[in-house]
């Protein structure tokens, strides 16, 4: 698993470059952020399978139309915490209900299995929508959209700084890591490994702090007086209206399905 994850670090900035244009790009960033937020709210609070599965279906449609690399997307979805996977596997056995089968005196229940499946469906639906609607925009566009949505200024700029320097610092990390490798260093389960990684991490911190000092200096040199600025005009166009109305109708349907089930 670690190999796969280290790989996603390399593709961090590659994400934007590998990006394939699609009609989703034409939709206003704010609309995409708000829609995915509402989608998450509705799907996660769904009690039943039908709305959750419909949500997942919609998520797949969005993934398809945003031309995401399916293989890579699935790998990211699968990269769930090991612990969460365990939790989901354990659920059938810990939930009381109608028995499916019994192993070692433990009874798996249908209710538990459904619950576990429901969690999996919901989690994946939300992630896929996020990937197709939000992760397809560059991180700086996301920052601008959040600023327009009245997220506190400092938070937005914090995010922009982070996005900006993630790449620089990860390059530094990779170089130092390579230099360690070149001296026959292999990660093992022992104190030497942990100490070395601790040193590496500490050194990375120090170099980053020194860089932060230089950035502050550079800002001073350009007359920085305690304000950051963002420049962009975001306009709601026809596509945006059409998309949000369609999407909201769909969400309405999901809510309706939930309520409808209640009356049964």
């Amino acid at each position, binding site marked *: *698993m*670690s190999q796969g994850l280290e790989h*996603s*670090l390399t593709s961090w900035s590659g994400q934007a470059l590998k990006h394939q244009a699609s009609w989703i790009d034409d939709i206003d960033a704010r609309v995409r952020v708000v829609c995915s937020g509402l989608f*998450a*709210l509705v*799907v*996660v*609070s769904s009690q039943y399978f039908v709305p959750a599965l419909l949500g997942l279906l919609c998520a797949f449609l969005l993934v398809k139309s945003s031309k995401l690399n399916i293989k890579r997307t699935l790998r*990211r*979805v699968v*990269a*769930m*915490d090991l*612990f*969460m996977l365990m*939790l989901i596997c*354990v*659920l059938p056995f*810990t*939930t009381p209900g109608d028995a499916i089968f019994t192993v070692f005196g433990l009874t798996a229940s249908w209710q*538990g299995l459904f619950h576990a499946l429901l*969690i999996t469906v*919901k*989690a994946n639906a*939300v*992630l896929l929508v*996020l*990937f197709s609607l939000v*992760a397809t925009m560059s991180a700086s566009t*996301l920052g601008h959209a959040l600023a327009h949505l009245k997220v506190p200024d*400092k*938070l937005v*700029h*914090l*995010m*922009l*700084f*982070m996005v*900006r320097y*993630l790449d620089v*610092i990860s390059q530094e990390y990779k170089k130092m890591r390579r230099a360690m490798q070149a001296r026959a260093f292999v*990660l093992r*389960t022992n*104190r030497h490994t*942990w*100490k070395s*990684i*601790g*040193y590496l*991490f500490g050194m*990375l*911190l*120090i170099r980053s*702090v020194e*860089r*932060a000092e230089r*950035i*502050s200096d550079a800002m001073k040199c350009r007359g920085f007086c305690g304000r*950051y600025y963002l420049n962009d005009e975001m306009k709601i166009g026809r596509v945006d209206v059409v998309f949000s109305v369609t999407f909201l109708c769909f969400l309405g349907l999901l809510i309706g399905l939930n309520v409808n089930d209640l009356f049964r």
Partner: protein
Amino acid sequence: MHIVDGALSSPVLITGAVLTVIGVFIGLKKMDYDHLPLVGVLASVFFIASYIHLPLGFSSVHLIMNGLLGILLGWVAFPALLVALLLQVIFFGFGGLLVLGVNTLNIALPAVIIYYLCYRGIRHESAKVAAIWGAMGGAGAIIITSLMVAFSLALSGESFVLAAKAVLPAHIPIMIIEGFVSYAAVYLIHTVKPEFITKDAH
């Protein structure tokens, strides 16, 4: 450590979100605009820490290092971790959107607690002593985090209780590793650039 969407009950989600908002608010209050580059850069380093996978038997664990972040940033750890976790959800799919509040709280609150517990110890003039405090902070943060994760699960339903009980033992190896790594990191910073730790973050 990343709980996924759909697992927790709404009261837990809402409580987590509210507390996180409060924490972020305090953090933002304590953070000047002048500090933004520093906080942004440090947050990136911690983001990268979660990519450092260390082998453990047949599997591997990744570093969290929220204790050290808390020691360095105090309350500012809240906004820093919120942003880091948000980026992880969106671009890598770790965790979920609605549980963001709970996830942030579970990682950032221990960081703040460790800040208050280790504030003095880490500023000890002996590098070794400071590093021991760092190790306790690093390991302690993991303990508190896993306790909080366990509670958020257990409060969400009877069927999660078993899993919640398993959280703590599952995190003991991570705790030990983080302790050692934090020890080395603090020792290095203390020897190489003590003013980084000893001067006040804000």
